[in-house]
């Protein structure tokens, strides 16, 4: 094991990351070296007049956890569908695991695993039978099948329930089985579309333990979409998507540092007067969101006493917080994720709800 902590691939001793220890000093550049796991160039999807995905471009490096963050209807699911060859792009190109999504569909499919929000398990079969079926469809060699199945089941902690019908599984267990199944054929990229939606917090956290564990144990890139901010914190890099476009793309830390200032939220007796007063007396522009006035200032804690002394409008409550991804979202799109979801995204949501079915 080298400095990077990862075991090299046999037989070519190539390291999954670019660590010197294993490359033996020579840089062998093969077509599938540390190339990008996913490469997207001006990808577009239009449904009639509606542009769901608008000329999106980004790259995902091999081995990272990449997150797509945004409200429902932003275009995340559509993008992921195009990358998984489930939808035909209207424009632009994309390669996944080095293969073009339009022209080399079979190769893309062989190298990806999918876990979607909608369950795709056969409830009338056992976990074993579901996995077996997946293995046959993906052509996993017979010799390796048994060990591989045990390996993935142990990984998600379902090895003792493998002979039970899936109909007896709880929601969390089914999701874990889907993750195990998605991994069965050792894909290069695992696509998780809202992997913890609809699950209770405890299950969500245990699934994330598995995912993080997975990343350490196998040579895999994880591509994730979510509208949960806390989940996005696990990612190496995040792209924020809104109305079909990527608004910003960076690591969570860099994004938060980019917003920079502390967020202060107050509720007042007269919001309109408060907004005006903040502007006139402090030069601060406040936004109204989720029933509170929100604004950013460099040093929130020092600001609060001044606020109370000088605002002139009754303040009912105040809170100061360091930047979070919610603030990042707000700063780049002008709304919080919750507001964006309840607002204009609704039309898009309906459209995608109808379209999600094959």
């Amino acid at each position, binding site marked *: 094991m080298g400095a990077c902590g990862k075991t090299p691939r046999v037989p070519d001793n190539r390291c999954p990351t670019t660590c010197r220890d294993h490359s033996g000093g020579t840089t062998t550049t093969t077509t599938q070296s540390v190339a990008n796991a996913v490469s997207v160039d001006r990808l577009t999807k239009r449904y009639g007049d509606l542009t769901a995905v608008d000329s999106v471009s980004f790259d995902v490096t091999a081995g990272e956890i990449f997150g797509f963050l945004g409200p429902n209807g932003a275009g995340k699911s559509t993008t992921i569908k195009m990358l998984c060859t489930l*939808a035909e792009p209207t424009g632009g190109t994309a390669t996944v695991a080095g293969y073009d999504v339009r022209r080399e569909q079979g190769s893309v499919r062989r190298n990806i695993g999918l876990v979607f929000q909608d369950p*795709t398990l056969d409830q009338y079969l056992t976990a074993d*039978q579901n996995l077996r079926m997946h293995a046959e469809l993906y052509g996993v060699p017979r010799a390796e099948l048994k060990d591989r199945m045990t390996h993935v089941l142990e990984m998600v902690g379902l090895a003792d329930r493998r002979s039970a019908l899936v109909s007896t599984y709880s929601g969390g267990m089914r999701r874990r089985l889907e993750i195990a199944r998605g991994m069965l054929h050792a894909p290069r990229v695992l696509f998780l579309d809202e992997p913890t939606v609809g699950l209770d917090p405890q299950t969500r956290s245990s699934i994330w333990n598995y995912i993080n564990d997975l990343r350490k144990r196998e040579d895999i890139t994880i591509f994730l979409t979510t509208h949960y901010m806390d989940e996005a914190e696990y990612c190496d890099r995040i792209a924020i998507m809104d109305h079909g476009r990527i608004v910003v793309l960076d690591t969570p830390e860099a994004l938060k540092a980019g917003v920079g200032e502390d967020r202060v939220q107050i509720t007042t007796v007269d919001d309109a007067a408060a907004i005006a007063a903040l502007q006139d007396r402090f030069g601060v522009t406040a936004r109204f969101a989720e029933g509170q006035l929100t604004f950013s200032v460099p040093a929130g804690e020092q600001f609060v006493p001044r606020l109370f002394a000088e605002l002139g409008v009754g303040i009912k409550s105040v809170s100061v917080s360091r930047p979070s991804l919610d603030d990042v979202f707000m700063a780049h799109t002008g709304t919080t994720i919750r507001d964006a979801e309840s607002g204009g995204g609704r039309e898009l949501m309906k459209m995608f709800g109808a379209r999600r079915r094959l």
Partner: protein
Amino acid sequence: MTATVDVVAAIRVKTPAGGLRHNLRAVRVVWQREMIRFTRDRLRIITSLIQPVLFLFVLGTGLSTITAGSTHSVNLRTFMYPGALSMAVLFTAMFSAASIVWDREFGFLREMLVAPVSRWSIVVGKCLGGATTASLQGVIILLLAGVVGVPYSPTMMLTVFGELLLLAFTLTAFGVMTAARITQFQAFMALNQMLLMPLFFLSGALFPLGNLPGWLQVLTRIDPLTYAVDPVRRAIFAHLHASPAIVARLNPGVTWGSYRVSTALELVIVAAMGAVMLGIGIWQFRSAD
């Protein structure tokens, strides 16, 4: 991490790049799934047998009191037996096809569609699975032969089984073809109901196809199921002891004008239809994404 060696070995899973063998593996696994679901669903097996049994023993017995005069030595139930066999096959085959819509609505279909297998292997696996399960239902009714006065002749049983298998395949292919683009289970069931009754009534399962008024004559010749029921009836009548007059009345066969269609031709027609519908089904599936 104690299992590093195992992990490295495990991640070397190399999936082959398509090819016929891979697709045949997929056909086999889709077929296996049909069989597992069929054998597990005992309730479904029993309920789908109730209809043919009701048809044969309630309808058959009841009506035979009226028709005894004209059928003479051959009981109406014996006459209706091929119909009962086809009925068992028909419903099961359709249910198999309906499961595609079910899978689509409840997600499992996507698992198959996103896998690196050709669409045709999924469709063929489904048709073979439906054919097998429908024929098995037919076999259960076939075992009741003695109750309706049909002798348990091995040659007859085998011939009839073969014909039922062919019918089952064609019916499943028909179902798959119609199910390929439908997204809602209820819509499919409604379509099903609309089609099954006319297909069945016009097939010669309930009445002989000679001496019919013009319009009915034409309609029965157009019904594909007719060309599947007739061979079974011929096979059964070949083993009955009945006067030639009765046989001519009850088993006149399918006539196109003055030509009586031979069994071989009938089977070819059914097979050809099956092949065509399979082809259309595959084509529809390719574009359903």
